[in-house]
């Protein structure tokens, strides 16, 4: 049974007890993302400190509704990026996105992705990849809004 490969315990844990859940103030930008095929939604806020190359992700808060994959993924995201330099967070985002588009053929780097490696099994299910990426798209979009506004 391949189900266990997809629904790793880590994912189910994050789904049941999501980290940093809820929308918080203050924040620099917010992004709303929706998966039009299934209706999953996430609203995500980022708070950055510092500027340009010194920028650090101070907080990520979110709310939404969706399947275990989309909800767990955004919870893992906050673990991976909060407190990290923005540049590092974006590298992590790229690595996660690459993993998800790899059709299960990419070996994830646990040093970079930590709990995110649990999503390696999801990459084998192309119709679920969008679920796993929903929160990450919101993060990328929100960050780009901060940067645009700042410039």
């Amino acid at each position, binding site marked *: 049974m*391949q189900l266990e490969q997809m*629904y790793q315990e880590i994912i*189910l844990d994050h789904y049941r007890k999501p980290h940093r859940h809820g929308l918080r103030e203050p924040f620099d930008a917010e992004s709303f993302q929706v998966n039009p095929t*299934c209706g999953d939604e996430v609203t995500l806020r980022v708070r950055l400190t510092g500027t340009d190359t010194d920028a650090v992700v101070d907080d990520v808060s979110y709310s939404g*509704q969706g399947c275990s994959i989309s909800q767990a993924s955004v919870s893992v995201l906050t673990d991976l990026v909060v407190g990290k330099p923005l540049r590092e967070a974006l590298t992590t985002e790229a690595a996660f996105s690459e993993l998800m588009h790899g059709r299960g053929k990419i070996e994830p780097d646990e040093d970079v992705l930590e709990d995110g490696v649990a999503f390696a099994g999801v990459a084998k299910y192309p119709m679920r990849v969008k679920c796993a990426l929903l929160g990450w798209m919101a993060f990328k979009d929100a960050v780009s809004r901060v940067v645009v506004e700042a410039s």
Partner: protein
Amino acid sequence: MTVEPPRTSTPLDVAAIRADFPILGRTIRDGQRLVYLDSGATSQRPRQVLDAERSFLEHSNAAVHRGAHQLAEEATDAYEGARERIARFVGVDADEVVFTKNATEGVNLVAYAMSNAATSGAEAERFRLGPGDEVVVTEMEHHANLVPWQQLCERTGATLRWFGVTDEGRLDLSDVDGVITERTKLVAFTHQSNVLGTVNPTEQIVSRAHQVGALVVLDACQSVPHKPVDFKALGVDFAVFSGHKMLGPSGVGVLYGRRELLAAMPPFISGGSMIELVHMERSTFAAPPQRFEAGVPMTSQAVGLGAAVDYLTAIGMDRIAEHEHQLTEVALRELSAIDGVRIIGPTNTEHRGGTVSFVIDGVHPHDAGQVLDDKGVEVRVGHHCAWPLHRRMGIPATVRASFYLYNELDEVKALVDAVREAQRFFGVA
């Protein structure tokens, strides 16, 4: 699980029917038997339909209505012959049947013809819309029968109104006369909901609409494939359905329009084969149905749909409806009996087709669908292109099982078992 003996007709020989569908022999994931319960999205195709299309392509393929050689003659005969049989299948005449790429195009065709009426001659008068005019839909529409009307209203300044849906998943017709009024120019509604399974009372809506002179568009995507439907008897002005939901090819749908309406209606998509005279400055247009079939059409697909209609007719739409009725009855009973499972839509089989949507407490539909898929049970999860309806029912998404003539009772059992498995897997049972 027990089946009651068939009431009105001899039961289907489902094993024989299944043998006609090559895909039903395949397996899913790690060797699970395919339990295809997603015919509401698209149906599978019997060998007879595949063969009809291939035989056409290997013997008579040519551009229809364009040229006089023997292949063009044979191709045109096959295409127009299919139109005749499809028309008969829904109780109308061949020249009232327009081939479209899908039902969605059919709805858009009427919606655009109505906005095009603004720049057309006097004969198109009755299709004109403007501020103060109203278009009426329902809260249970598929996006295909909602968004085109929203867009029409944006283009013309008309106002969109709608019938609500009750908690039981029925249309709220408590104020028909207040919703459909003298301002109403068009009423568009679904014959059968693709989520709830609800079959809507056409008579009441059609008679009120006609009382105020409004046109009626029926979305018959979920009814025509599953039971006998006669558009003339229903008295609707327009109706749409799709080939791929009724054993036919993708890429072909049907718009029915009452003869005198089609004759007065401005064109939608323009180009070759829909014209009468073309000058650089302006053109005039052919009579229906050609006026609405611009370009080289979905020729082999129409032929395939003709074969699908033959197949369905040979089995009998009454018997198919009866068969689905039985599967639905069992599915509703067995699913309702599971703790934590809630049916979205009518829980009995009255005025209801073979589409059963439900939610499982504590298991998101997407996750439930994954477990079902792992068991070979192919259902659809999400909002099924009926987002406002889901919002109305207070849920983001549902799991939907939809039945067809090739489904067996033990597939309903497989569905029920898989739902219990999903509950176990996510620790909610």
